[in-house]
């Protein structure tokens, strides 16, 4: 019980402490802000969980947020596409380019890991570097997005950016919520629910756990190990692409340095949420809870005016605590097993 819901209890306890000691924490507006702020990390952590459960790791997602982001912004604001397909078409194209880029690079990670039998740490370390370099190459180092004053296509480009902003920065009106419910948070919740469904209710999800639990037994049972691994990395990359779209929409620009070190936050959230780097263990909702725990901590310390340096230290301490707790409960529970 404690083991299964330990992180949830930790999150509730942290919220309770914050509610008692942090003025303004419990305001609905603040709570929705937390959801908005964690949405990108939670989506990355969700994809990361698929990979971690297979026993792998994906270091490339942060750079992928940058790379997929600049391509999204480029597709969205290219004069050629806007002229050809209009604002609606360009927005749709941008969505496809963003998720497609992410999923494609993720699939490449998976192929190199599964078929090339290269350690995932090395593969994704390489693609992390390549994707960041490519993002800077494509943009020349400056963000793509808001048109310059006097751009002949200024109105069109602004309209396209506004269209994507409806997704990345939009608010859904909710009675009682002054500023509405943030669109990215809604997308995050939908994705986590979909991820949970895939992991627990589908054949693919079962295979993901089987591979992480015992790859050899899975292979001997006829599980298509390589294909499933490829799929897990593609999902992680696809999540990075979606996160990139939300960021571009939110900021109305795609910067080459966007998503720097996001992979580490995603790994932290997945691990805090109960995923084991040894594979076989982890849940979609856990990834969300892990991301929320980090988000609530940051938000509370922000509201208290604590230096961001302290926030980093606190986050590190929580990771250590989560992993120690995990090892400790496992040792306690493992004694009476054969």
């Amino acid at each position, binding site marked *: 019980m404690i083991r299964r819901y330990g992180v949830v209890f930790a999150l509730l306890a942290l919220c309770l402490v914050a509610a008692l000691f942090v003025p303004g924490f419990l305001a609905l507006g603040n709570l929705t802000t937390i959801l908005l702020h964690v949405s990108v990390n939670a989506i990355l952590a969700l994809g990361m969980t698929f990979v971690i459960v297979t026993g792998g790791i994906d270091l490339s997602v942060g750079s992928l947020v940058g790379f997929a982001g600049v391509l999204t912004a480029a597709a969205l604001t290219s004069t050629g596409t806007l002229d050809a397909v209009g604002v609606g078409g360009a927005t749709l194209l941008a969505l496809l380019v963003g998720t497609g880029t992410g999923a494609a690079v993720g699939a490449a990670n998976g192929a190199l890991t599964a078929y090339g039998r290269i350690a995932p740490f090395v593969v994704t370390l390489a693609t992390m570097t390549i994707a960041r370099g490519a993002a800077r190459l494509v943009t020349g180092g400056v963000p793509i997005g808001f048109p310059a004053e006097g751009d002949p296509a200024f109105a069109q480009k602004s309209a396209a950016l506004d269209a994507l902003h409806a997704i990345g920065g939009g608010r859904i009106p909710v009675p009682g919520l002054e500023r509405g419910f943030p669109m990215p948070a809604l997308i995050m919740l939908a994705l986590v629910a979909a991820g949970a469904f895939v992991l627990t209710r589908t*054949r693919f999800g079962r295979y993901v756990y089987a591979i992480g639990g015992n790859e050899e037994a*899975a292979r001997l049972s006829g599980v298509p190990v390589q294909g499933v691994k490829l799929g897990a990395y593609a999902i992680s990359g696809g999540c990075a692409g979606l996160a990139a779209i939300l960021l571009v929409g939110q900021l109305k620009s795609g910067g080459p340095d966007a998503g720097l070190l996001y992979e580490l936050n995603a790994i932290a959230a997945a691990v805090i949420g109960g995923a084991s780097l040894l594979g076989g263990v982890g849940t979609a909702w856990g990834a969300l809870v892990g991301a929320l725990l980090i988000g609530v901590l940051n938000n509370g310390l922000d509201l208290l005016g604590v230096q961001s340096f302290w926030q980093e230290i606190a986050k590190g301490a929580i990771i250590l605590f989560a992993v120690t707790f995990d090892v400790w409960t496992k040792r306690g529970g493992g004694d009476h097993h*054969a």
Partner: protein
Amino acid sequence: MQTDRKRRREKQVAGVHCRVSLLALSAVTKRYPGVTALDAVDFTVEAGVVHAVVGENGAGKSTLLKLVAGAERPDAGEIRWDGAPVTFASPRDALRRGITVIYQELALVPNLGADANIFLGMERAHGGVLQADAMRAAAAKALGELGLFIDPAQPVARLSVAQRQLVELARALVRDARLVALDEPTATLTAHEVAHLATQIDRLTTKGIAVVFVSHRLDEVRRLASRITVLRDGRRVWTGATIEVDEAALIRHMVGRDVAYQRHPAGRAPHSAPVLEVQGLTRSPAFYDVSFSLRPGEIVGMAGLVGAGRSEVARALAGIEPWAAGAVSLSGTPYRPRSPREAIDRGLAYLPEDRQRDGLVLRFTVRENVTLPVLRRFAARGQIRREDEIRGARAAATAVDLRPAPPDIERPTVQLSGGNQQKVVVAKWLLTDARIIVFDEPTRGVDVGAKVDLHRQIRSLADLGKAVLLISSELPELLALADRVLVMRAGRVAGELAGEALSAERVMALAVEAQ
């Protein structure tokens, strides 16, 4: 330290003359869950003498070696070292007292040189800085004494198995070992390498070092050892001088007379055509020119020593590893699976030897394990239909008598006993509706009750018309279940026995190279 060593040497030399036991195990017993690996075994080794330990697979040889090495402690009985009772706290403790055990899977760090390996854990250093040159010279000298002239700095990964063995022996020499135990040292050596090793073992004994030699190869045992102990089912059945015993007598001791299981009636005459035909299957160096056939409703046993290539043949047929030459046909059409998936789809199920490593996802529940190979059947457009899955898993678990009844299919398999785990593996493959089922050591480490259940299930699978290939190192099990038995030796089918000709002695004789 130096004088201590010298004193030890003197005592050692004295030991050679008056034949005092260097190591004496008296009435040692070692139990593991569900099995008594050693039952009140006596075993003594004298300085300067080669004492061989022989027995079938599972007779307790490895356990005995583990006790000597300090890797395990006996549940009962006493160990005396150099005349005084001892308890080895750890392998390091045994090592410190002068006992070196050389296992079949050599304990060398492949990327380090012979010198670094020889001095591993006892490096010579000045204030933490390694004296590399001194160690290299000492390593070269020790290796030279054993007739191995190599650059001690090159990684041992580049050495042959025989050379690596000598590196381990050199390690024992550098450590001033007084007892060296070798586990199946000749299993993977060529005849020439065996001869060289034999010379080196002789040389060790002239230095007063005691040698324990565990082997299946009776001819080598008789050539090298002056004393032999035979173990069977965890008991010591015979100890004596090599000159007192011939090979046939040794085999009789190893096999024993009692057959523990009731022989199942073999009254089914399989008239139908073979469902699997294997012709000249070869993959050097694992197996060569293996041919046999399986008919529906028939249990064919596969006997042989560990390393004879039985599992390798089975794994090749199961699509896990390829084969280089030969032809297989399944139900009359050519069969060459490139993956386990393909083998399963063609109707061949393989139940691996090491169920914890290969057979089960231990974290998974019984249900999740049982349905893994056939999840497709319980899913519609990728989504698992939970009710169907539960129904299927429950039926399979009930069919294999998973205890306690009714079976709890939501229990993680890690919590089950060895016997129940094996039943889960069987249940898993029952669901695949395979026509050919290959069991690899299905009852190893399983308690007696579960063993009886499993035997009944194997029999009833054959009665249902499945073709069963049963690999087992337990002769009574093969004799009780199999309609005929293929005996493998060194990667080849050494013979096939059936009917009157099928006896434990005949199987053992074919398996251990007794001509």
